[in-house]
């Protein structure tokens, strides 16, 4: 009702530091101490998954030194991108507490569509891609219609979609079985070999750090002005520098081989965009709210149906995009595309990365982290000569181990009352 915001900057404790029960730490040392505190209390964000990942990497590297070679890592980045984009869409539907079981089929169908339209029908490739994305969006629209209009559980509607869309895919490719995408065409190059020029990768790494720093600095200044606590300049600089060093090193290492794939760049770009959308826009807020408490969101005047619709549409569209990327990677649109474990891998990537199946908790980065875990396991195991039976067993075991770290951390978070 009143509107006397601003200008508390005078004296007394900061606006958000008035409660004497809360410990606060200031400066770089304080930030470090606060971090250790958080480690102890289990509030770690994605750290545990990263720890799990490092364990996996160490083990595989010691088993076969090719694993961490730049060449193999570049392959890993290529492979991550396709399912990763699908997983990113899955994060959206999981955020609202729903599921999409048909992402695999949709990805396969969209690759078939691109193959048919582009190669067989002679459409321009861009048009074919746009058409496939639109069809993907329409499928998502259909799910959201069934959900909003009839209240059909998404598990059932997307299961029906899984089957129906697979049928469509088989039908499209029926006479040919699979369609080879022309080798050397831009799309296939993009999926198979296009890497960033070295300077671009270095520049992007630096840019990331810079943006983080500037955004942080701007916020800190505004908060200070407004009488709120703010991060110290030193810790902002430290964070940005650490980030830049890590990214530059990674870029450098990849550049000793082919370099950073543009396809991975696209994936990371989408992840960052999605992260921004999920955390810094009204839409993202609504997504979180609907996932956390649908009725509360509705009572807050949020158009709940539209939020669901956006999640389903986004998921199917990204699935279609992932399918097109997979087709580019394979230089072929085949009947097998999208079948098998694509579905499960995409959903698992989101869940392993820390997105909850029950809605309201998750982040775009979980798709990135999760898919890297899954593909690392797959890639590590292809470097060992194993029979299929052993490979399955070990994949299962490694997956469990990778997630135990995260689960333990989350547990301790619960016992510290921060679940």
């Amino acid at each position, binding site marked *: *009702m*009143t509107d*006397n*915001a*601003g200008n*508390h900057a005078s004296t007394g404790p900061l*606006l*958000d530091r008035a*409660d004497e*029960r*809360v410990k606060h730490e200031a400066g770089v040392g304080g930030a470090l101490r606060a971090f250790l505190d958080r480690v102890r209390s289990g509030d770690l964000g994605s750290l545990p998954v990263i720890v799990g990942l490092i364990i996996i990497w160490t083990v595989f590297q010691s088993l076969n030194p090719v694993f961490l070679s730049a060449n193999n890592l570049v392959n890993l980045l290529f492979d991550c991108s396709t399912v990763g984009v699908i997983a990113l869409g899955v994060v959206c539907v999981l955020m609202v507490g729903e599921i999409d079981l048909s992402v695999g089929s949709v990805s396969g169908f969209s690759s078939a569509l691109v193959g048919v339209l582009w190669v067989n029908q002679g459409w321009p490739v861009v048009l074919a891609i746009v058409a496939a994305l639109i069809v993907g969006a329409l499928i998502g629209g259909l799910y959201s219609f069934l959900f909003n209009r009839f209240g059909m559980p998404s598990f059932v509607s997307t299961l029906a979609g899984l089957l129906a869309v697979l049928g469509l895919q088989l039908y499209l490719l029926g006479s040919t079985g699979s369609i080879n995408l022309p080798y050397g065409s831009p799309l296939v190059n993009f999926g198979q070999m296009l890497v960033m020029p070295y300077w671009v990768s270095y520049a992007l790494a630096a840019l990331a750090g810079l943006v983080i720093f500037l955004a942080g600095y701007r*916020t800190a200044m*505004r*908060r200070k002005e*407004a*009488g*709120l606590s703010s991060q110290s300049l030193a810790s902002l600089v430290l964070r940005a520098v650490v980030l830049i060093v890590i990214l530059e090193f990674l870029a450098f290492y990849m550049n000793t081989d082919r370099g950073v794939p543009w396809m991975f760049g696209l994936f990371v770009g989408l992840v960052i965009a999605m992260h921004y959308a999920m955390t*810094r*826009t*009204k*839409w993202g*807020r*609504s997504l*979180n*709210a609907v*996932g*956390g*408490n649908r*009725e*509360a*969101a*509705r*009572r*807050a*005047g*949020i*158009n709940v149906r539209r939020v669901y619709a956006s999640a389903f549409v986004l998921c199917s569209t990204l699935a279609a995009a992932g399918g097109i990327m997979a087709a580019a990677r394979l230089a072929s649109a085949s009947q097998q595309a999208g079948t098998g474990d694509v579905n499960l891998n995409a959903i698992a990537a989101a869940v392993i990365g820390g997105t909850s199946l029950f809605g*309201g*908790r998750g982040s775009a980065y979980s798709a990135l982290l999760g898919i890297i875990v899954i593909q690392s396991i797959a890639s590590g195991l292809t470097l060992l000569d194993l029979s299929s039976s052993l490979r399955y067993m070990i994949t299962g075991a490694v997956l469990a181990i990778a997630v135990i770290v995260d689960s333990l951390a989350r547990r301790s978070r619960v016992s510290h*009352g*921060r*679940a």
Partner: protein
Amino acid sequence: MAEIAKETAREHEAVLSLRGVSKNFGAVSALTDIDLDVHAGEVVALVGDNGAGKSTLVKVLAGVHQPTSGTITFKGKPVTLSDPSAALGLGIATVFQDLALCENLDVVANIFLGRELEPLRLDEVSMEIRAWTLLNELSARIPSVREPVASLSGGQRQTVAIARSLLLDPKVILLDEPTAALGVAQTAEVLDLIERVRDRGLGVVMISHNMEDVRAVADRIVVLRLGRNNGIFYPDASNQELVSAITGASDNSVSRRAGRRRAMQQNSEEARP
């Protein structure tokens, strides 16, 4: 039931008025033929026994439930409140009894839910400042507005819910037991607040089981009983009167308890030398 002098000072047309509103849940008739008027600059207290239908009535007004029958008129025009955003759009803000907060979001996000500043680039700093201002106004003691609401105490949540409803510039505020979980200080602030918004010309509907609070701020007291209107009182009605309208009997547990206590006190006084 007494007339009061202030009456003339108020607008006579009701901002919100209900006629013959009923609501059934399956075989249960939660509301039957309810009539209610809320004028601008008036605090209407809605009282009644547990399960009398007060919250159901508020939910009907907030667009959460659709009435089975009956008409709702807002500023003289009949309206259908098909969903909460319709009610919010008309300027009806509500604090629900079950609070309806998103436990996974932090305090700031909850307060601004659905009306964030700058949709494409949330202005977190301004929102946080505004949130602190609102909360301080309500004397809330919240350690941090960046913790998820799940970690707040019952009273802290209620304060957040109240802060939410103050954000828009409503015409009518519906408060469903807004002080039930609040401490003495916070309750006093909320009662002050109710008087302030009333004086700014808003219509207020307040539900409470605390007769003292009701009498302190209400201009009119509407009693519901088993889903039906059961009389309208004014703040100077006696406790006895109100309670028997609420419970439907003059011999009720409240009067019995009061009687017993009086007897005991007399006994102990007599026993004293």
